[in-house]
């Protein structure tokens, strides 16, 4: 298919890998973070790390929208789902994220009317089909997904739908990146920037990374050649002593982003003063809530939620994995107590989660075979 097949060409991939090899200095260690969970998934699906020199290490960032959801938010969702007359809707991966007393899937098994949807529009359709029931959509995701929720809320308002509301857990990408860069136990040389978040926000929000922290950023697509070329572009910047924001994914990402998406988000959402991230703690201005103009469609206003902070399980090291301090297999419970079938931590739930990507693609080995 156009826009897909040409970015999976093995010959070209090998040529870019050779270019990468020529750019690295022997004896120097390179640590590059792929911010987005979609990149993590592609890297292991296509074995991209096996094409890299031994001294180029990929660190998995906080960009999985499921992995950052803390247990307390899941508990809040389950509390709404158990309210009489409620149909609770969410994306598939959210169903398995553990709360303090089970997941939404467990709550469904216990009798809650919890339904998986592919889009907020699906949830709106369920609301129209069930006018005597309250339909709640559990909105998660970064700026990629937030416009979809915002447009659906505008549609609900325009159609005068009274039985639809949103539990908003959308987050923004820049504050956690800044928090990571301020972390004293993290040493990174550059970033593979998130492709589809950038489709919405553009390249400009990432300029603080070279400006304030002296690290290169290359916004990348999700096919194997996209990621390899982004790595090559970062290494070329490092070899030349430069640090800039570059855009490898120009076929999709405009420098200014999608202005219509930014407008609709600004109308429907406002920043929360703080939002809790699993493993990273509270980060200022990193979460979105519905604006005052849309407060009547806010499920947290319409229903009572516990809003209790729940500490992560002691055995779980998702926080260190999300910060790139340890590799997934270095976690004490990886592949034993914590598996995709019975996850303890959220990084093992979503296919974009670093632990699940390692587990599903057989990356148990402590040593990496290199070219």
């Amino acid at each position, binding site marked *: 298919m156009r826009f897909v097949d040409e970015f999976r060409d093995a010959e070209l991939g090998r040529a870019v890998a050779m270019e990468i090899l020529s750019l690295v200095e022997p004896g120097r260690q390179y640590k590059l973070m792929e911010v987005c969970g979609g990149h993590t998934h592609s890297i292991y699906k296509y074995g991209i790390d096996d094409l890299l020199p031994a001294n180029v290490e990929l660190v998995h960032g906080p960009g999985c929208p499921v992995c950052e959801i803390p247990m307390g938010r899941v508990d809040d969702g389950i509390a709404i789902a158990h309210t009489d007359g409620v149909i609770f809707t969410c994306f598939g991966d959210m169903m398995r994220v553990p709360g303090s007393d089970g997941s939404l899937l467990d709550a469904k098994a216990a009798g809650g009317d919890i339904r998986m949807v592919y889009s907020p529009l699906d949830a709106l359709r369920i609301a129209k089909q069930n006018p005597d029931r309250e339909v709640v959509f559990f909105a998660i995701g970064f700026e990629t997904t937030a416009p*979809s929720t915002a447009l659906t809320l505008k549609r609900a308002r325009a159609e005068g739908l009274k039985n639809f509301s949103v539990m908003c857990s959308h987050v923004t990408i820049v504050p956690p990146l800044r928090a990571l860069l301020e972390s004293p136990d993290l040493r990174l040389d550059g970033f593979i920037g998130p492709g589809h978040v950038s489709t919405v926000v553009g390249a400009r929000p990432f300029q603080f990374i070279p400006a304030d922290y002296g690290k290169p950023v290359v916004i990348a697509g*999700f096919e194997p050649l996209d990621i390899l070329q982004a790595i090559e572009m970062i290494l070329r910047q490092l070899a030349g002593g430069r640090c800039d924001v570059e855009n490898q994914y120009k076929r999709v990402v*405009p420098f200014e982003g999608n202005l219509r998406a930014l407008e609709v988000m600004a109308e429907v959402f406002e920043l929360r003063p703080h939002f809790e991230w699993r493993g990273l703690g509270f980060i200022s201005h990193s979460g979105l809530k519905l604006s005052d103009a849309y407060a009547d469609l806010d499920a947290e206003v319409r229903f009572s939620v516990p809003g209790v902070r729940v500490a992560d399980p002691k055995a779980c090291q998702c926080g260190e994995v999300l910060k790139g301090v340890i590799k997934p297999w270095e976690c004490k419970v990886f592949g034993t107590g914590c598996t995709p079938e019975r996850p303890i931590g959220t990084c093992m739930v979503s296919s974009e989660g670093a632990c699940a990507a390692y587990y599903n693609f057989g990356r148990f080995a402590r040593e990496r075979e290199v070219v």
Partner: protein
Amino acid sequence: MSADDACGSQHCITCGDDGVPMTVVRVDLERGLALCAAQDGARSSVETALVAPVDIGDTLLVHAGTALARLEPTA
């Protein structure tokens, strides 16, 4: 149907920062929607407000039921 079955291929298209190229098959101007087909032939309604106007045959990058960008052929 479990969440895994629904997502398929160990990859959930809606949850991650994922975008799927889809081709416009029919346009509903009044409702701001387009019927789009994915590579595997699966069809779904897509919100087009962020990329409108769209025409039949356009390729859109779709995430969570919303078109985020129009894909242009690379030179």
